[in-house]
């Protein structure tokens, strides 16, 4: 039966895909990310269509500050790397190392989120509120949607880490951690596009 895997000799090499349930989750999550891609694509399209619709409000050239965004990008890229290191540890069944890398990922994500909140706060201070112009609305909704994904990812990983703090890697939780890590990479990739399309194109 597909649900049964012999774990007496330790975990299989791909614990996240060893059971049928794990396989289903793995595939289903890729489909989910496919849908998410289109969701973000629509928000990107909206932003590109409206980024010159500044009405009387400030423009992107007036506001965007690349050094800050660069730091944020580095934080998120590094967090993606640490989650990869955690997955390596998971496959080698080193639970302690795994947990450390995961917690570092969470901390980096939190730092990113902090910078983003600071950034939004600054913009509002400089006259770019959510309702200032179509550009403002589309900027805040695109970057904010990404920020909401980061926040959700942080909650998800934290819940998993606390829930499975003492169980070690099992065939039940391995798919969950793996998917959370996949989700985190997705968020990272989206940010790279935001960095390019919103910020780099916004300052020139």
């Amino acid at each position, binding site marked *: *039966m597909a*649900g049964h895997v012999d774990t007496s000799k330790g975990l299989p090499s791909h614990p996240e895909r060893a059971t*049928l349930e794990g*396989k*289903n989750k793995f*595939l*289903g999550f890729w*489909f*989910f990310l*496919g*849908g*998410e891609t*289109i*969701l973000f*694509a*629509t*928000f990107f*399209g*909206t932003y590109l*269509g*409206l980024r*010159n*619709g*500044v*009405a009387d409000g400030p423009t992107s050239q007036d506001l965007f500050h690349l050094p800050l965004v660069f730091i944020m990008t580095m934080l998120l890229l590094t967090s993606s790397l640490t989650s990869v290191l955690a997955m390596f540890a998971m496959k080698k069944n080193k639970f302690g190392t795994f947990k450390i890398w995961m917690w570092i990922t969470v901390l980096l994500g939190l730092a990113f989120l902090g910078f983003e909140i600071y950034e939004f706060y600054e913009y509002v201070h400089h006259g770019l509120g*959510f*309702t*200032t*112009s*179509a*550009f*403002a*609305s*589309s900027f805040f*909704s695109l970057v904010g949607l990404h920020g909401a994904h980061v926040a959700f990812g942080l909650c*998800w990983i934290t*819940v*998993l880490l606390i*829930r499975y703090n003492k169980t070690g890697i099992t065939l*039940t939780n391995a798919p*969950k951690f793996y998917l959370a890590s996949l989700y985190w990479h997705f968020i990272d990739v989206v940010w790279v596009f935001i960095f390019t399309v919103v910020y780099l194109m916004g300052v020139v």
Partner: protein
Amino acid sequence: MAAQKQEKSVIWDWLTTVDHKKLGIMYLIAGTLFFVKAGVMALFMRIQLMYPEMNFLSGQTFNEFITMHGTIMLFLAATPLLFAFMNYVIPLQIGARDVAFPFVNALGFWIFLSGGLLLSMSWFFGGGPDAGWTAYVPLSSRDYAGVGLDFYVLGLQVSGIGTLVSAINFLVTIINMRAPGMTMMRLPLFVWTSFISSTLILFAFTPLAAGLALLMLDRIFDAQFFIPNMGGNVVLWQHIFWIFGHPEVYILVLPAFGIISEVIPAFSRKRLFGYTAMVFATMIIAFLGFMVWAHHMFTVGMGPVANSIFAIATMTIAVPTGIKIFNWLFTMWGGKITFNTAMLFASSFVPTFVLGGVTGVMLAMAPVDYLYHDTYFVVAHFHYIIVGGIVLALFAGLFYWYPKMFGHMLNETLGKLFFWVFYIGFHLTFFVQHLLGLMGMPRRVYTYLGDQGLDTFNFISTIGTFFMSAGVILLVINVIYSAFKGERVTVADPWDARTLEWAVPTPVPEYNFAQTPQVRSLDPLFYEKIHGDGNMKPAEPVQPIHMPNGSILPLIISVGLFFAGFGMIMLNMENPIINPWIVAVGGLAITFGAMFVRSVKEDHGYYVPVEQVKADLKKGGN
């Protein structure tokens, strides 16, 4: 090993079920109720248009009815009715015990239902949405539309989530859960079309979710996406809507094609002509379906180059669709056809759909569309596709799968009467609408003046609607009559059909297949009838069967989403009784709380013991 399942009360069982068969029946019931509701609205609208300058409905009420009729029919009637069959039939046809994510499957149903109910709540809070099912801005933006439109936005947002998660479930089920030997190119065509339709849902409902989010932000939080003098753009909404809206047509019509491709071979006693061509034609239709959205916007002023490109792209869809039409015809050609009710619906689908398809090609000629656009010609065209295509297929599927789902046949005499009354009514209603459009009658008008030569055809059209209504009443009578007097079905295969769903006993055991079948060909059951003993060969010994536990969490998550949506709507109400934020945040807390419980609490399901499987096998006889 987890404990055995406990006995539960009937209501609790249905509220917590994760069984794809029960969910299929729930989709069927919910979809039918919404279908009747939107159908009654259509009847009222046709009564209003029966004579010129009638005062049966006001312009405002009429606009609310057109909006709700379209929205309900597409999102809350056609989609769930197709999902009903997809849920019930797909696992059986691929030889699976359940879907890949039974919990998500239940979640999809409950979220769809709570979204639908949220949309319907609008009637009690100052009237329904009134900007058409396309909700074009600025008519739907904060300056021109009331709170009814917030119900539209949030109701569709919620029910869309349900549709989306269901689609992911179907995709994974079809890829991962097939029985041994059931290769992709042996999948029944209904499974194929459902698979491709689910892909479309995945890539089309997400733009809709994004678009609805933008409209919600505009309406409730004063964003400026669609406000022209604040830098916004009203045409943007049309693009986003139709990037969803055009694939939506294929989301609905492809599974309908699938049903037709099941019923026609079964009652022609012939395998589907050109199976491979059918599969690839479906893929091409789906792919092109994403390339043609702007043909709904020819008169927006996109310019001649864009119009020409989208016109040509649209025309190319006629090619794969034509392939399908001829393959159905040649499936029947040389067959031994039994014209029962299911086959009457399925066979009449073919020429009827052609009538809708040819006007589609006419509409694709962008410059001539300047004449057709937004007239009754368009109304006639898409009703030929949706009623003449999807609804006929749904009725064919209903009569075909009814014995498997409910253990008795629908009455054939009443069924055939229903077919003729409905079919004649359909043509009476919609054929003349082509001419009305060409004679200068725009669509979405609540009345017309008496001196414009439009009276006769409008009258005929309304009479046709009475026939269609009478037909649906006959169906209801049939369902009730057959429940008491209908022929009971005890055999697995009452139609002498070809596919795997007819290999499981009636009523279907909770675990579907006592032993997973070994599939040796396309139309596996037919293959065993010819080359074997008529029974599927088992691919495994009789052993304990792993089953998922039921859960009340899907219902709780959906209730939470209902309140979250309702709270958001309350932000736009004049005098909400309680602070809207309490409702919205409370609803989200319920949803995320239930998701948290689901994530943290491990549920490994239970096993049906071997003894019981063996006992069932003996009882079932095969």
